[in-house]
Structure formats: C-alpha cells, structure tokens
C-alpha cells in the first residue's frame, strides 16, 4: 500500500473535489488501475452538447 504524500496542487484538487462531492454530489473519478484520485467529471451544459449536435457536418 502506497501512502505517498500529495503535493500542494494534488492536495488542493482532492480537497476541492471531496467538498464538491459532499456538497453538490459531484462525481469523483478513480484510476481503475491503482484506485488513485483521477479528478472530477464536470457537468456539461445542455447548450454545449446541443451546439455540437446541431453542427455535425454531412458525412460522405
């Protein structure tokens, strides 16, 4: 088991993500290979997805 201390940036990102998970049910990502923290998956706005869908070009 690895107890490698986090550096300052890693620690800040993890704390922010844990607070987001506790306060707003934000998803925490885990690396499936070693279960380390792999960031958060941000919600994507509807309009961003819809703009991408409506701009799909014709395919040949």
């Amino acid at each position, binding site marked *: 088991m690895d107890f490698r201390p986090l550096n300052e940036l890693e620690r800040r990102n993890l704390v922010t993500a844990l607070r987001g998970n506790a306060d707003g049910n934000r*998803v925490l*990502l885990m*690396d499936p290979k070693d279960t380390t923290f*792999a*960031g958060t*998956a*941000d*919600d*994507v706005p*509807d309009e*961003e*997805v*819809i*703009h*991408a*869908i*409506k*701009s*799909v*070009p*014709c*395919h*040949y």
Partner: protein
Amino acid sequence: MVLTDEVSRTLFAEYAAHRKSDRGREEIGWVLLGVREADRAVVLATLPAGAERDAGEAHVRFNSEAQALASRIVRQSDRRLTLLGIVHTHPGRMRWPSSGDYEGDRRWVSNLRGGEGVFGIGTFESPNRTEPTTVGGHPREHILTFEDLRFDWYTLAGDDKRYRPVPLELTLGPDLAMPLRAVWPIVETHAARLDRLARLIAKVRFEISENAGVPVLVVTVLLGEPGHQVRVLLERKTVRYVYEAGDAAFQADLPAGTAPDQGLFLLLAEVVARP
C-alpha cells in the same frame, strides 16, 4: 475508447435492420454520447440519425433537431454526458472516413470537449465472404465485427493530418438512449417545439411511459407547490394535457391541432387565472 456492450449491440442491430429496410442502400449513422475521463472516453448512448435524415448512397445528414432533444432527455440522468463523436456507414468497402468527411470533421471537432472526436465507419462484407457466427469478432484493436457487419474506429483532433485508428475495449453497460427508441417518431415530430420549451422553462422533465401498450412521451412541468404539475402526454397521433393538484387531476381539452408547447402555455394560463 470503451464501448458498453449495449451500445455495441445497438450499432450492429440497427445497422443490420437498416440494411434490410426500404432505405437500406442509403448511408446511416448515430451520434455518440458518453463520458470523457482522464485517459479514455466511454460511450454510453447512441442517438439514431432518424427517419427524417437526409441521406443517399453517398451521404448522410442526421436529423439534428431530434438528436438535440434526445440529448436533453438522456442527460437528465447524467449531466456528465457529452458528445464524443459519430458513427456512419459506407456502402462499399471503404473502411475509413472519406476526404469529404475529413474536411467537415477537422473543423467540427473544435466543438467537442478536448478538441478531439471519435469516428466509427460501418461497412459490410458480402455474405459469401463471411462464416456464420453467433459471437462478434475483434480482429484488430480498432475493429469490431459481427456476422457480415464491421465497424472501424478512429479519432481525429483539429490539427491531425489524418484519422488515427483507436484501440477499443468493450465493457458491460447500457445504451442510455435505448428507451427513447420507442418514442423516437414522437421525438422527431415535436423536437423543435419541445426543445424550445425546455429552453424557456427550467423545471421540465421528460419521461418515457406507455398507455395500453402504446409508447408515450410525457412532458412534466413542475409548478410552485408540491404535487402541483402539468403533464403533456404525447402519443404518435394524440396529445393529452393533465393538470394535477395534489390528489386531484383534471384533463384539459384543447382544440385539435394545438401544438404541445402552445397547449401547455394555454393550460398554464388557465391554471394561474383560477383563484
């Protein structure tokens, strides 16, 4: 890139069904929704091109209004879902995107998270060149096959000179858009109006239900008080409006031909006018 097993089954099954249909010589396609993770993309939903697509033997343009509304419906359960890419088919054995595809896609990928998209190309072998089988194949890391059908998978970023074959994994999981297939004709009929409704009113929910075996797309608008809501029930040829106030429910009769969003606002106006 990771495909769920149901997404993979959807693509093969709907491609096979398309080839047997009246429009089977046309190209067909799907939009792919999924989740981008640190080092992989997981495809979790397929949105079909739709009956109102513009397609021929050498091109396909999806019914994007229906796909836009469908994306709202699918994403109600998971706001992380984003557009990962598209799949389309070729009539011959050209198992990679065409130069025309490249011209459109290399600009379009700038609209995607990460500036990179995944692209699948569906093709088929003549039946006498394939062995009968009951399981799919994975002959190369970017190719999936089943019976006489085949999908080749690529990625493209905006500054790429060419598409790059992308290794595929399969995992157990859903096609989150599968329940929408039952109401897809309703989605196509009312897509523009319902999408506009969702932009105008924040507390709109879409659900798929059935009435005596007939698929129903239910649009629910929550009103201020608990238990108070307006529902629009869309079937293939009928639209019904219901106002629920606690334990009481009222069906509203509106003039024939009233568009569902118009009917909803007429009903809301009636509700607020009452003491």
